[in-house]
């Protein structure tokens, strides 16, 4: 459903743009008004989205990318490249920046806006080198006492021949382990799709936030359907079952908060979302500023250690 609405909105926007070129044309003004009210109606249809709709929006090509977030939220950004072992992986993008005057390390999965960019950034699917680069940046952040902010948006770690040869599993595992004990605050924001260990590898954070229409899951719905039912065409059925929306994950305590999106997705009005993220980051950093380094690591350990404790306890009670 969302696909048709989204396409129609795009057509309307294009038409409005073409019409607004004409000045002093009464008919055009009338048409613009009509189109605008149609767009508003269409956007109101986006109030109740199904999980499959959200997967569509989470992967939308006009959704802001990590560099958009960095440009909008940080100053003095200095990009850092390379894992200093063998390679620069462009699917992870990040560096050092100022956030309201505080130095921070910021990084995230990088997706492209078009096919060429996507080829260059490998569709936001990192190889081991990307994860090692991320770890290098995060270890450095710990050394200089900088908070870490990560943006998650990936279909998963890259399943390629070289990625395996260079130790994909090991690179992800190292990130999970090292991140769990870093002595600076880590805040992660799932902005698009967060799939599998490839997403979690930069997501072991003290606070995890998620955009309203983002999704976060053990693997893509297509992969889920393919593995469990041997049929990747049943992905929309998988979307329903997997509980991958922000609202579901909040209930599991996998995420700490939901960042509201404008109707029809972030790309309808990104600035609103940037402002919201800014407020949250200020709040979170103020909260963690009061904590000692060891307490920060313990806080993160306990978060993941006891994430499922509620569910286990509930099941125990039910059995008893």
């Amino acid at each position, binding site marked *: 459903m969302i696909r048709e609405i989204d396409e129609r909105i795009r057509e309307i926007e294009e038409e409005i743009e073409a019409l607004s070129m004409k000045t002093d044309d009464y008919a055009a003004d009338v048409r613009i008004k009509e189109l605008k009210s149609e767009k508003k109606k269409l956007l109101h249809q986006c109030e109740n989205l199904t999980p499959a709709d959200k997967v569509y929006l989470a992967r939308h090509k006009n959704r802001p990318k990590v560099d958009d977030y960095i440009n909008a939220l940080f100053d003095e950004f200095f990009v850092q490249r390379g894992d200093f072992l063998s390679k620069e992986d462009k699917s992870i993008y990040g560096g050092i920046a100022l956030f309201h005057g505080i130095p921070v390390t910021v990084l995230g999965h990088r997706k492209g806006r078009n096919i060429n960019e996507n080829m260059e950034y490998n569709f936001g699917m990192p190889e081991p080198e990307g994860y090692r680069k991320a770890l290098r940046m995060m270890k450095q952040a710990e050394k200089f006492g900088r908070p870490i902010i990560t943006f998650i948006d990936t279909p998963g*770690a*890259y*399943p*390629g*021949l070289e*990625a*395996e*040869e*260079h*130790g*994909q*599993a*090991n690179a*992800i*595992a*190292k990130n*999970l*382990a*090292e991140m*769990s*004990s870093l002595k600076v605050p880590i805040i992660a924001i799932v902005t698009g799709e967060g799939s*599998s*260990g490839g997403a*979690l*590898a930069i*997501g*072991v954070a003290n606070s995890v936030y998620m955009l309203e229409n983002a999704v*976060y*899951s*053990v*693997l893509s719905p297509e*992969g*889920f359907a393919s*593995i*469990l039912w041997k049929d990747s065409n049943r992905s929309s059925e998988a979307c329903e*079952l*997997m*509980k*991958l929306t922000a609202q579901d*994950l909040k209930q*599991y305590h*996998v995420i700490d908060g939901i960042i509201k999106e404008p109707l029809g997705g972030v790309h309808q009005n990104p600035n609103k979302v940037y402002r919201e993220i800014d407020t949250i980051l200020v709040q979170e950093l103020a909260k963690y500023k009061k904590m000692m380094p060891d307490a920060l690591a313990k806080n*993160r*350990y306990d978060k*993941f*250690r006891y*994430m*499922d404790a509620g*569910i*286990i306890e509930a*099941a*125990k009670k*039910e*059995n008893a």
Partner: protein
Amino acid sequence: MYACFFYSYRRIGVREMGLLGKTKAELAKYATVLKHSGKETSEFTDDFEPVVIKERTEKQEDGSVQMITCTSCKAEIPSGIMKKNLCVCPECGAHNKISAARRMRSMVDPGTFRKLKCKVPFVNPLDYPDYEEKILKLQEKTGLEEGVLIGVGEIYGQKAMIAVMGSEFLMGSMGIAVGEKVTHAFEVADKNRLPVVMFTASGGARMQEGILSLMQMAKTSAAVQRFSEHGGLYIVCLTHPTTGGVSASFATLGDITLAEPGALIGFAGPRVIEQTIGQKLPEGFQSAEYLESHGFVDQIVPRSEMRKVVGQLLKLHERKRWSL
């Protein structure tokens, strides 16, 4: 002191420990060191329960000899011979799958195994259809509570926390129960300053439990990290197959990483990789030997040698004074 000496003498075997030709006094000293390597407090015993490791064997109804087909060379081998050989094919040497219980028995000194107390109730966060029936059936069939069997045992007299994943239990996949048990094992080992010996065999995260199975990766990895920062020794043996969420968490975080010959080890499955890159994978891709040549495995150890090698590794690390 002497009792102590004979106690360890019998169990370890002087020749195997490389102690031949040592004077009596030296041997006695050595024995005391061994005795104190794992402390026993009442708190310690509370964490474990004595059990007999049961192996489920299916008897043929007509009483004839059951034959097992080797997955590699397809030879028909009588089950008794296969069992004695730890499921390694006597014809071609292929390492066939071995049940968790049998592996545990093959590793620990007889009578020393005590199971880790860690009951995790059945949970079904996605309300996945027919999931509970499936788990109950598997528990009945395999005799395992979940995809991993954990306890404390002695290997050549050296106490260790030993965990064995069972690929017979839903491909050893890691859901909340497996993650919880593994994490608890590391915490108990940390508290009691025990080394951890882990045999992995898993298809990865358990899809049926959704995002919470993914979170087990972070939970277990964090537990390994904490254990490791406190100076704990973690020996991993990668067995067939170790892939997905398990290979990308605690399976590849060992201080020492061993692998069984021919085991499939990797993050993504071969089928997914072939689809992604659109070409056939080279022979032996993601095998233990392939990983060894790319620098991700310390040593490949045949199953028959495993107990000896792990014993040796424990011995090489026992003198370390742990610092908290």
